[in-house]
């Protein structure tokens, strides 16, 4: 079997059924014939949409990280939750392992993912630094499992429910920015398939190399 022939095939990520690729219209998706999972899409303005959405997500992430998430009021005593206070508490009380895990899962990995998407899209636009783009795409693929912002947000909701009976809760800026961020996250990370980016990468860099 030739290598070009392999390019016409695609394997479903969920049930690993082998499919033959077909051309699809813009803004449509191809689903697995066996388990109905989306295998690939054809996004209209893949490059522009992704760049815009990721940039917005990065701004929202920075807002979410620098302001208060929520403030509680127990009989006139106020206490607010933000990332700084979270890490100060964790490290002061000596929970280093939990602290380091939180730091990576909530702060570092999401930022790294978003920044590397932006960098690789810009590099792709100018068709430069193919190796760097490849490394970034691999990095994103590996880190995807380890970004836990969505779980952190659900945890905020759960702790709010736990505190309802004791305290008055006021929602702050970061809370709303978290909500918007998660909506964007679902669109960017889950909807815009990295498969498409890989195909774009192949088109831009690998074909050039083969011609040489």
């Amino acid at each position, binding site marked *: 079997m030739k290598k070009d022939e392999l390019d016409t095939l695609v394997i479903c990520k*969920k049930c690993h059924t082998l499919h033959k690729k077909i051309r699809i219209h813009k803004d449509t998706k191809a689903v697995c014939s066996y388990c109905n999972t989306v295998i690939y899409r054809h996004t209209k303005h893949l490059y522009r949409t992704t760049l815009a959405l990721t940039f917005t997500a990065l701004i929202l992430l920075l807002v979410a990280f620098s302001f208060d998430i929520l403030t509680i009021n127990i009989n006139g005593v106020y206490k607010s939750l933000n990332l700084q206070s979270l890490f100060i508490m964790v490290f002061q009380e000596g929970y280093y392992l939990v602290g380091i895990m939180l730091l990576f899962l909530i702060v570092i990995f999401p930022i790294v993912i978003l920044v590397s998407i932006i960098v690789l899209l810009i590099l792709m636009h100018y068709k430069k630094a193919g190796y760097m783009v490849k490394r970034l795409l*691999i990095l994103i693929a590996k880190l995807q499992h380890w970004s836990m912002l969505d779980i952190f947000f659900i945890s905020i909701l759960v702790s709010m429910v736990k505190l309802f009976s004791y305290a008055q809760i006021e929602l702050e800026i970061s809370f709303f920015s978290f909500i918007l961020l998660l909506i964007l996250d679902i669109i960017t990370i889950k909807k815009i398939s990295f498969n498409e980016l890989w195909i774009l990468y192949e088109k831009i860099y690998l074909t050039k190399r083969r011609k040489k």
Partner: protein
Amino acid sequence: MRNYNLIRCPICSAVNIDNGDEIRCRRCEEKIYPTKNISYNRTIAYLLTAIILYFPANIYPILITKQFGVTHESTILGGIMLLWQAGSYPVAIIILVASVFVPILKFIFIIYLLIATKYNLKSAHTEKHKLFYITEAIGSWSMIDVFVVTILSVLIHFTAVKILPGAGATAFALMVFFTMLSALSFDTRLLKKEKD
């Protein structure tokens, strides 16, 4: 086309020909999987670590409440019972599912997949792939409990009343970490073995 063993690269999702040994993906040039035995043993090692950590995670308190000098410690199950008694059923169910059922389900799924590949149990390999996909997807949700404990201990931090994370929280976080590693190091090529 049937003669070839085709596999999907877990990183860039390109289709590759599997020759049964260590291969590099033709698109991203990353190692797809190490030799089968290594990844099999690695999965077992991570899984065992996670199972061992599961016990301290449940036995040690995950939450310590200090109220006017009186210390009260509660484990994961104790916390769920308290929530249930307090009447917040949805939250109790979320935490029960996320921090008790999900880890156990993951253990069972991975053990089943390991046994199924070892003894070539006959069941459709697409079903096994689906099971593996679910195992990967639900893994990180167990972290909810650890996050909730840290958030609560930031908010309830007064001189008279204090909530602190207990030793169970560290063990639990590590357990989730190792179950995720175990799932990630599992070689999906093993699932296809029965075909040839």
